[in-house]
């Protein structure tokens, strides 16, 4: 099965080129970003309000506090084929729920141990604190992380999925 990235129904501005076997030069990772409602999700919104452009290969999942982000979430994302997972929350002292982010760190450490055990490169999992005002930082973190994971190549668990978000259904590769 060789699925490549495809365009969409609009006149494709960037046509996907079916690449030969092996590493595609334009390989883009699938990233899952977990964000807390009060800081990092708000930071992503701030990036929007200020129109700070960043790479579009991540999907953000909102929870109320980074303390909610349990190892199971991260591991499930990897299991399903994520090439990288970013966990984000408020800076220390800023958590809306006093110290949820301190718990998040502990959870993160546990998760990291399992991730390493599974043979997943630790560069695929990252923890960042981003405040509601730090739109630029959000964009920067996303860009850095995307590049970092891109350099690592597809995750060993991604089943050869090659491009961001390309499902293969009934023999047809459809974007989205």
């Amino acid at each position, binding site marked *: 099965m*060789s*699925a490549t990235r*495809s365009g*969409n*129904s*609009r*006149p*494709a*501005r*960037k*046509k*996907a080129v079916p690449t030969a076997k092996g590493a595609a030069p334009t390989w883009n990772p699938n990233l*899952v970003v977990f964000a807390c409602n009060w800081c990092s999700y708000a930071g*992503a*919104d*701030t*990036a*929007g*309000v*200020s129109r700070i*452009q960043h*790479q*579009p*290969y991540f*999907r*953000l*999942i909102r*929870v*109320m*506090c980074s*303390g*909610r*982000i*349990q190892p*199971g*979430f991260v591991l499930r*994302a990897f299991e399903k*084929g*994520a090439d990288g997972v970013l966990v984000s929350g408020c800076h220390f002292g800023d958590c*809306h*729920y*006093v110290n*949820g982010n301190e718990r*998040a760190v502990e959870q993160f450490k546990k998760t990291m141990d399992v991730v390493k055990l599974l043979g997943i490169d630790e560069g695929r999992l990252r923890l960042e604190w981003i405040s509601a*005002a730090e*739109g*630029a*930082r959000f964009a920067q973190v996303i860009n850095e992380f995307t590049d970092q994971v891109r350099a690592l190549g597809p995750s060993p668990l991604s089943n050869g*999925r090659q491009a*961001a*978000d390309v*499902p*293969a*259904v*009934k023999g*047809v*590769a*459809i*974007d*989205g």
Partner: protein
Amino acid sequence: MDAGRHPLIDVVTNAEVIGCSGEPGAFRVRVRKNPRYVREDLCVACGLCVDACPQVGGNEFDVGLKARKAIHRPFPQSVPAAYAVDRDACLNLLGFLSEKQRKRLEKMRKVKQRKQGDYRAAPILVCGHCSDACDVDAIDFDMRPEEFEVDAGAILVAVGFREFDARKLGNYGYGRFPDVVTSLELERMLNASGVTQGHVIRPSDRKTPERIVFVQCVGARGEGGRGYCSRFCCMNAVKDSMLVRQHDPEVQDITILYTDLRAFGKGFDDFVKRSHDEQSARYVRGRPAKIEHVAETGTLEVFVENTLAHEQTRIEADMVVLSVAAAPNDGAAELAETLGIELDRYGFIARKDPAVSAVETSRDGVYVAGSAVGPQVIPDCVSQASAAAARAQRYLTGHRFEEEAVPVEPMDLSGPPRVGVLVCHCGVNIAGVLDVEELAAYAGTLPDVAVAQTHLFACSSTGQDELVELIRDHGVNRIVVAACTPRTHEPIFKETCARIGFNPYLLEMVNIRDQCSWVHAKHAVEAQTKARALIRMGIAKARHLSPLHEGEVPMTRSALIVGGGIAGIAAATDLAVQGLPVTLVEKTDRLGGRLAQPNLKLLYPTMRSAQEVLDEKIKRLKKSGARILLNTEVEGVTGFVGNFEAKLAGAVDERLAVGAIILAFGADLYEPGTEYGYRNRDNVVTSEELERAFFGDADTVDIEAFCARPDGAEPKSASFILCVGSRDPEGFSGCSRYCCPTAIKQAMELCRRGIDTTVFYRDIRTISTGAEEMYREARGMGVLFVRIPPGDKPEIVGKKRAEGVRCYDDLLGREIEVPTDLIVLSVGMKPRQPATDSFHDMLKASVDLSGYFLERHPELAPVETAVEGVFLAGTVQGPKDIVDTVAQASAAAAKASVLLAFDKVKLDPMIAGVSREQCRACGACVDICPFHAPELVEENGVVAARINGSLCKGCGTCGSWCPSGAITCEHFTDRQVHAMIDAFFEPEPCSDVRVAVEGQVVT
């Protein structure tokens, strides 16, 4: 943001108060609203007009560092979100035109008017780019200033401050040299979403400056005619220097030129220490004489006398940052006149007596908060604002807001999920990048989706109507709105759902604007893919949503105040005047705590008698109708917000049911023990003991006897040692705030009696209103101030009696010895024990590292604790002086009264719940929850955790912590999150071929 959304708050921007009549409880205020030329009700803040606008104007928010279009949004988080037209820059508005052009245009308009006979004929527009670009026709150059009247029970002045105009100090070269900037300009650069995206640049060549010099106290502490201390600048400079270091490693060298480092707030001293440890800045004590520009190198030179090293130095710098002081805001004087309130000598709004009330102006019913009264730090501003609100409520009782309960029949939403999807164009905000129709069509192919539609502006009233129609016509029981961010718009959609009886928790929002079309505009293809994925994930979550219902618990509408000192008195009075039953419990047999005789004689800086102030406060308290219980203690507290039960013992013996508790039992003074020979030398006393001595025989104070020499001779000299028990790395590392001004006050008193007085200090922190002036006065009187290095402690000379003080004089640069007949130790504060520990145990409210009660958030929630319904007033939260204590007490009262205004506590249903079957009663959740919501309870012989819905805040941390997966976090359940993850990677089969289009690859 929250204020803008609040149903009971009308925000009128661009407006000024032009008249005020009436009396407290019934003011009539005339307001003039100046036109912004954009209709707030229509503007969707899309920003198209900005792109179209050809005209560039000034930019006060980015302090001139970045150009701004004539039509603009004042700043990204502004409320209202609508754009505004800059009167001075827009081509259509006369402000921009030259005299000649203006005349011509006027003439043309007159002609037009005459022809059309209409006084308000549409003006001739020179430029119409923005109105053409606007999709919703929000731009309206016909707007005129509007005047209207507002009925108000009370008026609250919060006009803030303006920065001191550093141009007035010519020697600093601000305005002449581009590389001399103000702290505010630096702040804008450091802001990640600001002008330079967080990079510090030198304005002259936009390069990173390698050497930066901060100059403190610009326009403060005697400079530029302003005697006061601006309070926030020291910490701001320390913080900025650290930020600059973190952000730009190219910055090699930062120097801070200071006089005293005033790190007086909670945790501030630790912060400064960190800055020292990290060597983020070099601290030089001195005020620059002048700053000069060196033409050859293009750099600056700061001429300063280093007062510790005793040398004139020249510091080369690439950029100089002036920490400018706060000055009264423009228009404050006119406003004060309109409102009939007094100003102080600097032009700030004056308060009647800050020790009585921190927010009362000279006119009844008019209150003031924040930096309008003089420079303030944020936590104090927030406390004062709440305090002002508390005082204002006095005139608002009777106007209390009654919730209108329009009962709606809940819709039957049972059965398998049928999802309705609404995709928003948001004008071109979304549709300009994404193919919205295609998104809706795609959504329509996903499982369980009954209907998918699009709308031009989903949040508009027609969009809401469409949502209602969609629910009714298609019998859907889940809604997914793909539009902007749920943080701002979810309430709107939820409200619409609730209005028609559709459970609002069955709605899920997908953010395809702020986090997709706006940030991936250059990657339309990828953005489309992302939007589809996000919608798919949203639908997946929606399919697993379940209806939630807001719970309620009854609220006992009464409050318990623990402690009868000034804080307790102030809090109790503020609550009781609103007609709420208040019980004040005091352990001793009298009210007043530290203010009562014989503890404190005069209050600085007004020099009013403490007793007089106290009497006034007690009189108010008695009149308020609060129940006062002396000789009574609280033995135990159980329950939770709205339903506490306190066991009182002492004068009465009862169980008291209350809805809220305010802790106001104060702090203890530090006990010096053998330090400085306090125990074994007679003439070493604490500041408290000295204060008591001032109460001799009324006027003829017997201070002489107090420090008489053994040989009977008159005492000639006295010494004060500051920071005893404060700023001590081994003990309390913070600043006790009250001791500097108190010591100065006492020193002046002794000085007046002809005693030579010397004060040994590390930094003089006279931060409160009027204290800096008092400091200067004391110097003028001849009180000697000796600065000792921060790490040192002065040594006491003499065996049995203290005969002198020996120390290293930082300013003279050598060891000195000052003979003395009396040594006064200015003792700091420490948490009161055992009260702090016992209330910590009973209420589970946390304490900080220094042992004081911990506020929920230093800026956002300075008087709340993590325990709902428990508030802090005064020094239980940390050292502060009387003015700050009173302000905080009123703030605590205000916060409590918000809770007590209702007879029920509404419970958010998006909280955690425990499955008793799965729970193994390990107690992990009990240990980690900062709000103490979970507890282990036994039921039918089985122990399991239970979560108290009125304490749970819904963060979900326990859910992720629970080792047995027994905890469900509503609205963010494992299942829902998993469904989202799965939907990202395992798209549902798409039966519809419409989505299989160009660009796809067949395997």
